[in-house]
C-alpha cells in the first residue's frame, strides 16, 4: 500500500503557517480547511517567482514576458484539466471562485441571447437542487427562477444527513431542465450518490451540475468518469490561492451557451452594434483574469498530485474515523451528518446542548488555538432542516493529525466546564 508512505509530519513542513504560534505561545491547530485551506511553499514560491520574474498580461502581449505569462497561465489550465480528468483542456474555464462558476451556468438558462433548446427555461420548467446546498448553489437558481418564472425544487435530506432520493422520479421529471447538487456537503460531510441522480437525469433529459468545492480538494475526482455536464470547484480550498475557481463543462454545451461577462479577450471581432465571440474557454474569461492565482492553482495541483489524491483521501478517512469516535465521547455532543465514515468526508459538524457554537468556537480559539468554524456555514436551509441555528464545524485536510483532534476534544471538555 502506498498509504504507508504518507508522512503527515513531512507534509506539515510543506505548510509554513502550520509552524507559527498564536499570541500566548499557543500552537495553531487549524481545523477549518473546509472554509479555506492553508498553502504549501510550492504554491507560495511559484506565485512569488511568477510575480518577480515573468509577470505580464496574458493572451495579448507579444513580448517575452507576455508569452511567458501566457504559457504559465495556459499551462495551469492543462494541469487542472489533467487533475480532474477533463477530456479536453478547453473545457476548463477559470472563474473567480465556485460561486461564479455556478452563476455562469445559471445565467445560460432562460437567456434570450441563447438559442439552444436545452437552456430554454420558463414558467412550467423546473430547477432541482437539494436541501443540503451551500448558498452558492441555491441563490443563483432562486434568481434564475425569479427571472424566468421557472420553479425551484429540492431533494430533502434524511435525519442521518443523506440525500433523500425516495422521491427521485417525481422530483426529477420531464419538466426538470437542470439538477445541481453538491458532491460532498460542506456541513454534513456526506458524499452524494451522483450516479443514481445522473441516471434519472439522463432518462428525462435534464442537465446535471455538481458543486465539487468540497470533493476535488479531498478525493480523486474524474469528471469524465462522473459523467455529469458541469462541475464547479475553487482554488483556495485545495491548497491554492483565493480568487481563482474553475468551471468544467462539456465542450459542446459550453459552445451552445451564451457568454456570461462581456469584455476584452472574450471576443473574436467587435463592431459598434454587435460582436462575435472567442472560442471556449476564452469566451467565458472576459477581462484580465486572475493570472498569478491561476498559476498558483496549477502549483497546488502539482503539489496534490505529488502526494497522491488516493493517499490524501485515505488519510482524511482515517482522521474521520478517529474524529467521529473521539467526538462521540463528549457528553451530549450531537453530530449533524452521518455518524459513520462511509461515503463521508472529514467535515464534522456538531452541537453541544446549552452551549452556542459561537461560545464553543471562541473558547477553542482563545484557550487552545483550535480554529474551527461556527455558524450556519452558508447552508442556512440545512440548519433549519435540523432545527438548529448553528453548528460548530471541524474540517480536516491532508496536514491534520489525530493529536489535533485530541486537542479539539480537550477543548470541548473545557468548554463544557465553563458553561456547565
Amino acid at each position, binding site marked *: 500500500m502506498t498509504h504507508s508512505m504518507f508522512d503527515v509530519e513531512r507534509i506539515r513542513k510543506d505548510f509554513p503557517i502550520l509552524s507559527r504560534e498564536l*499570541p*500566548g505561545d499557543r500552537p495553531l491547530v487549524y481545523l477549518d480547511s473546509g472554509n479555506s485551506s492553508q498553502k504549501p511553499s510550492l504554491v507560495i514560491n511559484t506565485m512569488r517567482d511568477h510575480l518577480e520574474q515573468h509577470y505580464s498580461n496574458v493572451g495579448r502581449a507579444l513580448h517575452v514576458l507576455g508569452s511567458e505569462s501566457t504559457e504559465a497561465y495556459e499551462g495551469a489550465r492543462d494541469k487542472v484539466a489533467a487533475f480532474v480528468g477533463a477530456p479536453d483542456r478547453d473545457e476548463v474555464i477559470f472563474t473567480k471562485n465556485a460561486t461564479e462558476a455556478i452563476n455562469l451556468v445559471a445565467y445560460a438558462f432562460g437567456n434570450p441571447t441563447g438559442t439552444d433548446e436545452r437552456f430554454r427555461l420558463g414558467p412550467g420548467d423546473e430547477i432541482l437542487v437539494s436541501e443540503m446546498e451551500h448558498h452558492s448553489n441555491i441563490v443563483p437558481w432562486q434568481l434564475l427562477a425569479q427571472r424566468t418564472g421557472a420553479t425551484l425544487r429540492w431533494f430533502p435530506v434524511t435525519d442521518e444527513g443523506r440525500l433523500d432520493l425516495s422521491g427521485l422520479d417525481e422530483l426529477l421529471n420531464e419538466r426538470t431542465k437542470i439538477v445541481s447538487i453538491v458532491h460532498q456537503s460542506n456541513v454534513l460531510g456526506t458524499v452524494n450518490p451522483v450516479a443514481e441522480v445522473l441516471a434519472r437525469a439522463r432518462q428525462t433529459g435534464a442537465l446535471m451540475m455538481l458543486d465539487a468545492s468540497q470533493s476535488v480538494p479531498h478525493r480523486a475526482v474524474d469528471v469524465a468518469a462522473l459523467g455529469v455536464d458541469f462541475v464547479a470547484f475553487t482554488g483556495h480550498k485545495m491548497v491554492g490561492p483565493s480568487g481563482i475557481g474553475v468551471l468544467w463543462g462539456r465542450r459542446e454545451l459550453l459552445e451552445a451557451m451564451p457568454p456570461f461577462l462581456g469584455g476584452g479577450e472574450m471576443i473574436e471581432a467587435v463592431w459598434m452594434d454587435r460582436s462575435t465571440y472567442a472560442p471556449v474557454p476564452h469566451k467565458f474569461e472576459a477581462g484580465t483574469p486572475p493570472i498569478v492565482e491561476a498559476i498558483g492553482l496549477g502549483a497546488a495541483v502539482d503539489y496534490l498530485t505529488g502526494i497522491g489524491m488516493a493517499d490524501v483521501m485515505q488519510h482524511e478517512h482515517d482522521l474521520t474515523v478517529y474524529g467521529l469516535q473521539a467526538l462521540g465521547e463528549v457528553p451530549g455532543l450531537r453530530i449533524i451528518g452521518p455518524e459513520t465514515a462511509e461515503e463521508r468526508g472529514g467535515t464534522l459538524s456538531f452541537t453541544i446542548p446549552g*452551549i*452556542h*457554537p*459561537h*461560545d464553543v468556537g*471562541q*473558547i477553542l480559539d*482563545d*484557550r487552545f488555538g483550535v480554529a474551527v468554524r*461556527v*455558524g*450556519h456555514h452558508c447552508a*442556512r436551509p440545512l440548519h433549519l432542516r435540523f432545527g438548529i*441555528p*448553528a453548528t460548530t464545524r471541524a474540517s480536516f485536510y491532508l496536514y491534520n493529525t489525530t493529536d489535533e483532534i485530541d486537542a479539539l476534544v480537550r477543548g470541548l471538555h473545557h468548554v463544557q466546564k*465553563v*458553561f456547565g
Partner: protein
Amino acid sequence: MIAESLYQELILEHYKHPQGRGLREPYDAEVHHVNPTCGDEVTMRVKLGDGGKVEDVSYDGQGCSISQAAASVLHELTTGSTVSQSLAVVDEFTRLMQGRGQVEADEDVLGDAVAFAGVAKYPARVKCALLAWMAYKDAVVRSSA
C-alpha cells in the same frame, strides 16, 4: 487566558439564569432584531408609564452567551428606570462596545454592564453584545412615537 476576560462570571451567570426573560403583556412596542452573520435574534417588548418611566422590558431570543446575557443585564438596568436614564446607559454601553478595548468604562453609569468591557476587544462579538441594546433603543423610539 484571553477568553476569561470575555467570559466574566457575571456574564455566565446571566446566561445560565436570565433575568426577566419571556414576552409579557401589556406593551407599547415590540421589535425583532437579528444578527445575520451569526443568526442571533431577540424579540423585545417595552412598556412605558407616566413621566417616562420604563415599566417593563420583556424579551425572548436565541444566541450565544454574550447576546443572551446582554439582554438579561439590559432588563435589569432599564426596568424601573426612566427613558432618559436608560438611554444614557445605552449610549455609554455602545461607546464602550465600539471602543475596541481602548475606552474606559464609566462604572457609575453602566453598573453590571461593565462586565462586558472585555467583549470590545473582539470585533466579531461586539454585535452580539449590542443586539438587545439596539433592539431596546428601537423599541423605546417606537413606544414614544
